């Protein structure tokens, strides 16, 4: 089945106002379809009231929207509604978990992360371990052989040779990304989770990149917690999801205290998930997130993924033909990072910006990985459903222009 990207693209108003835009920075944030914008606006037009405890009609409507999005998210990832906590982004999800676990961790325990992590799933755990006096361990990438210095199979994936030593009986938390935001590498979760479970560690998955590309089935994944953000899956900024298994959610303390989470003072909190949701939430944004999930549910995701894969293939081929280009990472992902001899990634991004091709350059908030790869920065191209072969052609032409300027 062919994927009708034109029909999809037409649903995104930014491409009407900026028809020249070639948006290839989707790992950073995606554009929003009109249905998402409408859902946010309609909340303010028709139901603007605070959630919880209002007895008038629009307050009840606001409550209904809020809780229906929770149920929608739960159904989308195969969870129970009470296992879904609304946060403002993936970072807050990770911080909530890490702060909660820092009270449970003890001296002599260890926390394990990987070199593939975004800082959001690295620093909170580093700090939690420090606070608890626990050991902070990092699973490195496989650098033994392969091209580009990116690993045995060139994918920049993890070195799991000594997994049993890294995740040993001391380990209480394994926090790991489902998809690197730099190389797109997807760690062998089955193996890592099995090992974590064997030693009784809780498993935390960062799905910030994966949620839009993979079908999340939390029960199958056997993770204790998974977090992701709404704005990378065509939803609004300021919306994030933290899935937590009931027994974990009941065990850990809230990150935020205040209104909307108290059962009885001094310190009895509401049941999960409400104990984690102090303060007025981003109800309009969440209404938009609900629309984003409807949008994703309404497309053939297998065909969509195939479409993205074809673009990646085309782009990788075009880029490798340009002198001095080195590709990093995994062919199977929708993210392509690269470097070019004699030209800094920021200069690449600036020249591309001049051609209306939007990419990102820098360390991508993944310094442990960049250090391991021996890079200070790289350029990153990342695809979404509305991208096309024409976008790839413009990308390649713009990178060729960069090459000719810095010859």
């Amino acid at each position: 089945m062919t994927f009708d990207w034109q029909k999809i693209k037409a649903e995104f108003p930014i491409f009407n106002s900026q028809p020249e835009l070639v948006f290839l920075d989707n790992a950073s944030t995606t554009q929003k379809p009109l249905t998402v914008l409408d859902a946010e606006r309609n909340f303010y037009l028709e139901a603007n009231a605070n959630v919880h405890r209002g007895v008038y009609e629009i307050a009840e409507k606001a409550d209904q929207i809020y809780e229906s999005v929770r149920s929608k998210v739960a159904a989308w990832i195969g969870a129970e509604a009470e296992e879904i906590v609304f946060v403002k982004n993936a970072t807050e999800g990770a911080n909530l978990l890490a702060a909660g676990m820092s009270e449970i961790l003890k001296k002599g325990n260890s926390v394990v992360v990987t070199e593939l992590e975004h800082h959001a799933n690295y620093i909170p755990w580093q700090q939690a371990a420090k606070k608890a006096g626990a050991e902070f361990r990092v699973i490195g990438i496989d650098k033994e052989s392969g091209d580009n210095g990116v690993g045995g199979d060139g994918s920049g994936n993890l070195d799991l040779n000594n997994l049993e030593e890294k995740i040993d009986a001391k380990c209480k938390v394994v926090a790991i990304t489902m998809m690197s935001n730099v190389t797109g590498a997807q760690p062998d979760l089955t193996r890592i989770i099995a090992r974590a479970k064997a030693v009784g560690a809780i498993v935390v998955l960062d799905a910030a990149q994966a949620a839009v590309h993979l079908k999340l089935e939390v029960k199958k994944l056997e993770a204790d917690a998974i977090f992701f953000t709404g704005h990378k899956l065509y939803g609004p900024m300021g919306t994030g999801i933290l899935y937590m298994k009931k027994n974990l959610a009941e065990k850990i303390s809230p990150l935020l205290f205040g209104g909307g989470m108290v059962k009885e003072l001094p310190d009895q909190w509401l049941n999960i998930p409400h104990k984690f949701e102090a303060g007025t939430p981003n109800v309009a944004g969440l209404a938009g997130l609900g629309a984003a999930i409807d949008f994703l549910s309404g497309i053939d995701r297998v065909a969509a993924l195939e479409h993205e894969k074809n673009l990646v293939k085309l782009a990788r081929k075009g880029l490798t033909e340009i002198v001095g280009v080195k590709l990093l990472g995994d062919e199977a992902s929708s993210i392509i990072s690269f470097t070019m001899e004699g030209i800094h990634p920021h200069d690449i991004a600036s020249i591309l910006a001049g051609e209306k091709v939007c990419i990102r350059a820098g360390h991508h908030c993944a310094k442990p990985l960049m250090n391991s790869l021996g890079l200070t920065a790289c350029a990153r191209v990342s695809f979404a459903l509305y991208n096309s072969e024409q976008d790839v052609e413009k990308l390649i032409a713009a990178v060729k222009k960069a090459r000719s300027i810095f010859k």
Partner: protein
Amino acid sequence: MDIYAEIILDHFKNPRQAGLIEHADAIAEDLNPLCGDKVKVSLRIKDGKIAGFGFEGDGCAISVASTSIIGEQLAGLEMEKFLEMSNEEVLEKLGVPISPGRIKCALLGFSCIKKAITVYKHSHA
């Protein structure tokens, strides 16, 4: 004019005063945490004037070229005069349009030289 005008490319490919000077009176290093651009500057100061300059830069064309262009204009300049220089004046000296996203790159060398001179002033006050 384009940001990657000949002047920027020329100074990027052949930075003037490349390399740190020996027996420097003032040194400093700085980095742009957003993109990892790094610069290290060294200065010789005589009678309140800049008497020598050299730098090492690892970064984008804008950060390296801007440090090189500013460096070219330092000889004999009173350090007080340099400290009075504004960001706008520096951007003007570069002679190419710098977009908001690249201003930090363009000013990295300038702020690093300022830092070196300020530290020197304090230690010689």
